[in-house]
């Protein structure tokens, strides 16, 4: 019974927060931008790699898909960051957080629901665009490939959301946070030591190994990409959670 109540209350709060954050226009803008960019990357890949796309086999299809996911991940990370920063700073600065937390909603539930609410729509749009492309453009996607893709996209999404959440909570200013995050996410392209947190490298290395596209990539390299992203994400998410629980909402 307590579990049922807690699930019910979580669903209530998620739908409440979704209603506040996801204006219909913002949701449509998200769908159009992410889906268009994701699908556009397939088109460019198919023309540049192989003009006879319908004849290529599983291995080539996965290769095209990996390249397209890597390419489109840049715009995905950008949109996800903007969404996350705007959602947090809007509720913090406009005093809506104070109003919501004067209702019987615990800070723990609020934090979890807000994170869910921020990442679920872009995550679904990004993933479904790639599944659509895999199924209808490339004519191939197996359950195993799909599961790996879901896990990697989820990990990358949560990684981006965790950094954006932490920065938004600490700075509480939308514009400054956005500029800072954009510089954080462009750093890997300037410093090769930071390649592990670059979204494009992350997808390309991890998917290359997991879909066995190039055997020569060492196992340890793929693990490094996933491991570093995962541990950084957990650490930052935990820090944001503790900070949110302790902060004064005045």
């Amino acid at each position, binding site marked *: 019974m307590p579990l049922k109540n807690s699930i019910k209350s979580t669903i209530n709060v998620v*739908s409440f927060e979704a209603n506040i954050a996801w204006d219909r226009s913002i949701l449509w803008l998200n769908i159009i931008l992410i889906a268009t960019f994701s699908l556009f990357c397939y088109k460019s890949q198919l023309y540049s790699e192989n003009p006879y796309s319908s004849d290529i086999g599983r291995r080539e299809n996965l290769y095209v898909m990996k390249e397209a996911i890597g390419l489109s991940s840049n715009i995905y990370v950008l949109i996800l960051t903007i969404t996350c920063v705007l959602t947090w700073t809007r509720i913090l600065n406009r005093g809506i957080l104070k109003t919501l937390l004067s*209702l019987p909603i615990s800070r723990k539930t609020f934090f979890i629901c807000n994170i869910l609410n921020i990442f679920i729509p872009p995550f679904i749009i990004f993933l479904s665009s790639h599944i659509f492309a895999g199924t209808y453009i490339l004519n191939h996607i197996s359950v195993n490939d799909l599961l790996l893709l879901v896990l990697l996209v989820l990990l990358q999404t949560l990684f981006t959301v965790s950094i954006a959440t932490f920065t938004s909570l600490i700075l509480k200013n939308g514009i400054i946070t956005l500029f800072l995050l954009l510089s954080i996410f462009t750093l890997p392209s300037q410093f090769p030591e930071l390649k592990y947190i670059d979204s494009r490298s992350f997808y390309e290395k991890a998917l290359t190994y997991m879909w066995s596209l190039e055997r020569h990539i060492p196992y340890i390299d793929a693990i490094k990409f996933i491991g570093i992203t995962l541990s950084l994400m957990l650490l930052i998410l935990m820090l944001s959670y503790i900070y949110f629980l302790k902060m004064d909402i*005045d």
Partner: protein
Amino acid sequence: MHSIIESVNLYKNFGRIVALDGLEVRVPRGVSGLIGPNGSGKTTFIHILIGLVKPDRGEAYVLGYNSIKDSLKIRSRVGVLLEDERFPGNLTVYEYLRHVIKVKNGDRREVMEILKELGLDRYLDRKIKTLSAGMFKMLGLAQALIGEPELVILDEPTANLDPIKRRKLLEYIRRISKENDISFLISSHVLPELEEICSWIVFIYRGKAIDQDYLKNLYAKYSSNIYEIMSNNPRLLVEYFKNIGNIDIVEVRGNRLIIRVKSFNELSSILSKLLSNTSIQIYYFKPIGGLREVFNLAIKKFY
């Protein structure tokens, strides 16, 4: 006395600003008022009660629950209207309240009655961002009353309301407090309003509770032998009273003085001497005893 709100030695600083300085408050069941000037710590105290702000030291209890450990239990039994309450402007009143009903386990029929009483039923389809400041307050009040709360905390509930709506709101609070046995803690600057509906009053000044008691006891304690005197030269009058020494000057308002004396006989003998020995003219003097004067006297006595 059984308290529904109690704070023990509460301290809270925001950087260098001292918001609460050892605040000790007790509030019984019924309608109670929280009085203090701007920056005295009323809003911080309310925020601590519902767990939005954590005190640096001390503890607060609401309906027997600790404000930090059991803040969720408190918020499920207490309705709150915050001073600068903000709502998501992109939702309609109906959409917003539908979520609040779900979160607070409210009853739709009961909510419709509340909305009717507050005049919000005609605005259900309106986007919240298009509501006037007064309707905004009403929406906050409706939110606070949803879910049959045992206690409702209202921070400046009549701000932005026109006199007719103020009167209606006060009457409504008085009625539901009696009919539904709901206790209220109201923080307000408009003292005559609190005087009308509150039975218990807490005076807060510079983060401390300088006095708290039933309204009638406070009157008995402070406001006996308080007079308002209007003269042609208040400055000279103040000096004259200061030289005599027996008169307590509470406040100077333009050419009117609020003073406290030991007895009416003493005042009349002082005034007759004053009129015969000085050029000061007294236009009138009358006894007064409003909450404002009581509050000023309480501050004077405390410091």
